[in-house]
Each structure stands twice: as C-alpha cells, then as structure tokens.
C-alpha cells in the first residue's frame, strides 16, 4: 500500500515562476505553489504529464535515462514504441529501425509486435473471463495510477496483462537472447509514466526494461543518421494490429470487441471512469483509456504534433496490414499475466479514524463556504475546496486566500481608524 513513489515528472525550480497554471490542470490535485514555486505532492502524482503540457515556463520536466546509459551494457537492444515511427515524415519503419542499429544498438525489437500479443490475449480474456465489465485496458500507466488514486473501486476492472513494453523486454531477455551477457534493453518512450513504470512497476515486482530513453532525446541524432541510410535492413515485422496501439482507437480496434469504446485525454478519461462507477457503462465490454490526447502519439516525450503523428501512424500501419502474428500458439513461451496485484492509494483520506475524518470534513465544508469559490489559485491550491482541505489538515491558513486577507486588512484598518478616534482627550492635537 505504501510503496515509495519515484516520479519521472519533476520541477525545474529555476524556471518556475509560481504562476499557478499547472495546479488547476492536475487531475489528482497534486500540485501546490509554496514560496513562489510549484511543489508536487509525490504520493498523489500519477505522471500523466498534464502539468508539463500546461506549464508556460517549461519548468515541469520528465526525467528519463540519458543516452550514455547505453555504455553500461555490452549488448544493447532498442524497444521502439509504435508512436516513435510517427515522429518521422515519410521515413519507412525499416529505415527508423536500421538507424537505431547504427546509433549504437545491437538489435531492435518492435514493441508493436508485443502489442499484437497483448491484443490477442486481451481478446481472449474478454471472451473467457467473467470479471466485472467494462474491462479497462492497463496499457496506459497514468490511467492505472489514476484509478489507484481516484477510482479505487474500479481496480477489479483493470486488465491484468503486462504492457507491450514489458512483454517486449521479456521476449528479448527470455526468448531471443536468453544467455546473452551484458544485455541491456531500452524502451524508446513517448511518455514519462513509462519511465515511472520501469522504476516502480505496476503488476510486477521488477521491470525487465533496463532504461527508458525519451523519444525527443534520441530524435535529433537519429534524424541525422536516417538521412545517410540508402538501403535499410529489413527489420520491421509488426503488423498494423500492433502499430495502431500508438494512437487512440488503435488498441480497441486491435482487440476487436464490438462493445468497446476508446477515450483519450485525462479529463475525458475521468468522466468515463466516473460513469463506470455509477454503472452507466455496464453494457460496454472493453475500454481503451489513454491519458494523452490522441493516445501515445500525444505523449510529452514526443517531438511531432500529436494530430499529425496520429494521422501519419494510421497511414504507416495500413501499409503493414497483411503480416504479423497469426497463430496465438506462437505467442510467448511465458505467461504474460501480471505477477503482482495492484492496490488503491487512498492518498485523499483525511484521517485513519473515521469519526475524526467526518469531523474534519464538516470543518472543511464550513471553511469552504466562507471562501469566495472562485478557484483562482492565488493561494497556491487548485480550488477553494482544496485550500479548505489544506487548512484543516494544517498545511495552509485562511489568510492564504487573498480575498480573506483583504477583508482582514480592511477590518484591521477599520480598527486602527477607530483607535485613532479614541485618542485621549487630554491633549489638543491642533495646537501643537
């Protein structure tokens, strides 16, 4: 329950102006501005990257592994996410993969191939397993963490299949290079939540991925190499089934359930999860839920505009329709189910004692009613209600609200004027 959270999303204090733009966009109310700088409440952060997207000063950053981390290994395998192909205009997938081999990797394994395996396994699960409906995809780690923090009752809806990234790493380590010494496996990532997933795995004790390289970090060097490639090696094997996972709708199309929906963008995901909790969606079988707009191509570690990337990836995947995995028996030599349960992170809980918590809640409502209700963010909290929570939990005070502060000043000023009028009558101030 209390596993230590290590995050990819961090703050560059020097760049932060304390402008409060990020606080109102955070889906878990995990940011406060204190002493003129944003501060991330670590156990609430789900690494969705929403603050990175909204920060006008580019002070929110995602920390991934540096490229020189490759030097620690003697045999390096790159695992490019499907979204990576969409970063390059009119560059065949074979050329991108060949370029990865030229830049320092010894081999490549497409995460799109692993996504095909996950698609087939998900379809089987939908057919055979009678768990609560709708089943929710676990491929977006930010969504899984959102469920842990804000929608704990939906944990039993989450599909317990490893992500394509983990499946790919396991295929490389267990099947392709089982005895290779000095083997390092690197995911070429569109998103910070994947970085966190490698450090603090979901559904696993340990991730088999050794490092996560941001797509935007490797892009400039790779682009130069791509220009020099005349005859690319024939390396791409994945079919459209897996490549489509890089954009919204792709996964649900690959899973091919008639009663499925796909939702992208964290705010839309929250609305859908709310409705699942009210049982509005029990007639839906499968939900693809992506935190980023447009799906993984909208990740904050990508380079290309997400809408261009999505359209491009659709085009690229169509060219790879008639290949890939056909027989589910040939999938993997290992079980791709989760090996570890996930639990709720009740970080919103006010107190361990329920009577005490109810008392605190009453106090919060009382204070909230006194606050202006503008949710202006000037106090450093995202909403008036969250300021009321912070006050009751001892992290803030009423006068942090500039409107309350102004009223207090007015009161004190009035008292001073009143005091001044009450000057002793023994002196005549006019005849000084």
């Amino acid at each position, binding site marked *: 329950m209390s596993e230590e959270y290590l995050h990819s999303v961090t703050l560059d204090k020097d760049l932060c102006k304390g402008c409060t733009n990020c606080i109102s966009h955070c889906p878990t109310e995990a940011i406060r501005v204190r002493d003129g700088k944003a501060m991330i409440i670590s156990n609430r952060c789900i690494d969705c990257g929403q603050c990175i997207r909204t920060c006008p000063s580019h002070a929110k950053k995602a920390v991934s592994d540096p490229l020189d981390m490759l030097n620690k290994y003697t045999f390096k395998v790159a695992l490019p996410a499907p979204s990576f192909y969409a970063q390059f205009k009119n560059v065949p997938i074979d050329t991108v993969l060949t370029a990865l081999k030229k830049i320092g990797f010894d081999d490549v394994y497409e995460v799109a191939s692993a996504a095909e395996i996950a698609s087939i396994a998900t379809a089987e699960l939908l057919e055979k397993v009678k768990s609560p409906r709708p089943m929710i995809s676990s491929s977006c780690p930010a969504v899984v963490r959102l469920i842990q923090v804000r929608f704990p009752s939906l944990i039993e809806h989450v599909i317990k299949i490893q992500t394509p990234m983990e499946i790919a790493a396991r295929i490389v380590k267990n099947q392709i290079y089982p005895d290779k010494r000095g083997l390092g496996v690197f995911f070429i990532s569109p998103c910070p939540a994947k970085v966190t997933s490698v450090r603090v795995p979901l559904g696993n004790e340990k991730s088999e991925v050794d490092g996560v390289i941001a797509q935007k970090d490797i892009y400039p060097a790779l682009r130069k190499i791509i220009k020099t490639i005349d005859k690319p090696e024939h390396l791409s094997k994945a079919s459209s089934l897996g490549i489509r996972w890089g954009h919204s709708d792709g996964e649900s199309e690959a899973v091919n359930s008639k009663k499925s929906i796909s939702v992208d963008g964290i705010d839309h995901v929250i609305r859908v999860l*709310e409705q699942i909790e009210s049982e509005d969606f029990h007639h839906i079988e499968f939900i693809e839920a992506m935190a980023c707009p447009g799906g993984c191509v909208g990740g904050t570690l990508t380079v290309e505009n997400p809408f261009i990337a999505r359209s491009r990836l659709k085009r690229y995947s169509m060219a790879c329709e008639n290949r890939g995995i056909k027989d589910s028996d040939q999938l993997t030599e290992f079980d791709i189910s989760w090996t570890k349960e996930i639990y709720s992170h009740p970080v919103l809980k006010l107190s361990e004692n329920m009577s005490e918590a109810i008392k605190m809640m009453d106090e919060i409502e009382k204070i909230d009613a006194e606050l202006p209700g503008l949710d202006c963010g000037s106090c450093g909290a995202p909403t008036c209600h969250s300021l009321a929570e912070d006050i009751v939990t001892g992290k803030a005070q009423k006068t942090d609200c500039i409107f309350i502060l102004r009223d207090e000043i007015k009161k004190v000023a009035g008292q001073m004027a009143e005091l001044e009028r009450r000057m002793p009558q023994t002196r005549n101030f006019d005849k000084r």
Partner: protein
Amino acid sequence: MQLNFSIPGDDMDLAGIASSTLKKKLQQIGVDNSVIKRTVVALYEAEINMVIHGGGGDITINVTPTEIQCELVDHGPGIADVNLAMQEGYSTATDAIREMGFGAGMGLPNIQRNSDHMEIHTVPGEGTTVKIMIKIG
C-alpha cells in the same frame, strides 16, 4: 456530515452531481470501497429517477461513522403503483431520455439491491420521497 443538493428537473447534465460529490467525500473519510460503490450506484439511480420522473428536487445526505442516509424529495407526479415500479425492466421514460441511454427500467430494484434499507413514500399528484440507508463497516 451533512450534504444538501437542489437538483433541477429536465437537466441531465446535473443529474449525478450528488453521487459524484458524495463519492469523493466518502473516499476522503475512509469508507470502504465496496460501500462507496453501492452508495454511488444507489444514489445515482435515485438521482436520475428524480430528474426524469420527479421534475427535480432536493437531496439531503447524512453521514455518520456507522451509516449513510440519503433522502430525495421531489414534488413530481408521484408513483401510481410502487409495486409495478419495483419490477425489473418496468419504465415510463420518454424516448428522448432513452436515447441518452437512460430509462431502461431497473431503477428502483437497483437501488434496493445496493442499499441496506430503502423506503418510498409517494402521493400521486404531490410527489415522492425516497430514503436510502447504507451501513458502513
């Protein structure tokens, strides 16, 4: 802890506000997830009923460490035959409401299934009061 809501009729956008607000507060006071789930489903259903059939109304919710009590009062047409309304699949919703995916019947039985105690007081022509009680722990 007491929460009060005034829900207008014929505005499906606002239907659900009480259950989603209550959900967050129950999480914050540490109520068990399975209890929260039942509460949300029962209250949401009752809320939707109040908007569709009752023309809106008032919701009062009281939470103590032992139970959650919800009272929904509307001044709508009332329920002519409560026993009939309690049957699975029975619905009087209009086509417009059904097109939004609501009004498939099952409302009242679903509330009963998810609550520990449920009471309906209804007077045709005057309105309906639905009381839902769910035990905590």
